[in-house]
């Protein structure tokens, strides 16, 4: 599979995701945001970090960069798009995903390992996980508090577009297992076409036992499946 990682000024998880993709045998390319053509790709990743310093609104300025036009075209043509953390914020700013990511409810940056539950495992991003499987995964963000309007929330529920939710070690999804105030503990969502995934947790940080665990690996192997 061919993948492209888009690099914005201020991206800082671009190397991390590239390492993970390479380990998973993706043929990966780094694409600078000022490029106007996208190499042929089956997967486009918008990496984590602080594109443009998170100034104005996180993801807003990256959402206006030249390459984004191409990403939108590819998305409409069915290419898989994965936005992690800042990448998720960029996806909502471009309108590829609905809703928005507000400041964490405690107004602080949060970095820690949390649990998320696989709510939908019948997607191209999650078919290697079991339904309701609990993953331990790292989050690191200031604005991860997912918010959307009631009708879209209803659509997310009905169409099974919520892919991950924050939970505790036992799998309980409630206020105490919600790190950032997200609506319904949402950690990751799909578009209605199910080819675009935006998620706040960092699967690329969970692909090496020495550093953490391997809970992120199946996300990538699902795509290869």
């Amino acid at each position, binding site marked *: 599979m061919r993948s492209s990682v888009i690099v914005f000024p201020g991206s800082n998880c671009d190397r991390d995701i590239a390492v993970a993709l390479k380990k998973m045998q993706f043929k990966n390319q780094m694409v600078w945001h000022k490029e106007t053509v996208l190499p042929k790709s089956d997967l486009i990743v918008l990496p984590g970090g602080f594109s443009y310093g998170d100034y*104005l*609104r996180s993801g*807003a*300025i990256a959402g*206006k960069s030249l390459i984004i036009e191409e990403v939108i075209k590819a998305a409409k043509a069915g290419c898989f798009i994965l936005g992690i953390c800042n990448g998720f914020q960029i996806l909502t*700013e471009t309108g590829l995903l609905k809703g*928005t990511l*507000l*400041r*964490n*409810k*405690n*107004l602080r940056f949060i970095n820690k390992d949390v649990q998320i539950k696989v709510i939908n495992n019948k997607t191209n991003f999650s078919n290697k996980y079991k339904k309701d499987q609990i993953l331990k995964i790292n989050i690191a963000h200031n604005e991860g*508090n997912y*918010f959307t*309007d009631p009708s879209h929330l209803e659509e997310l529920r009905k169409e099974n577009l919520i892919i991950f939710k924050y939970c505790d070690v036992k799998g309980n999804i409630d206020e105490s297992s919600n790190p950032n*105030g997200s609506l319904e503990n949402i950690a990751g969502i799909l578009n209605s076409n199910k080819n675009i995934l935006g998620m706040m947790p960092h699967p690329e940080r969970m692909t090496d036992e020495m550093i953490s665990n391997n809970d992120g690996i199946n996300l990538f192997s699902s795509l290869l499946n």
Partner: protein
Amino acid sequence: MKFSVTVTLKKDVLDPQGKVIKNTLNDMGIKNLNNLRQGKYFEIEVNETNLTLAEKTVNEMCKKLLVNLIIEDYKINKI
């Protein structure tokens, strides 16, 4: 010509920042505080002497970048 733009969150959008600030002010012993919402503020100087044209440019900036129309409202004022 100089303008100010104030950007506020739409009514039904949660304002986590405003909420925490409000609680903090309450904790600090400030009474009578009914409500507080946080927004953004810009001061913009355009090189244009025609008011209508100038306002049009500022409006364009808001729509294209400064404001996320899905969750935010905005107001432009000449200053």
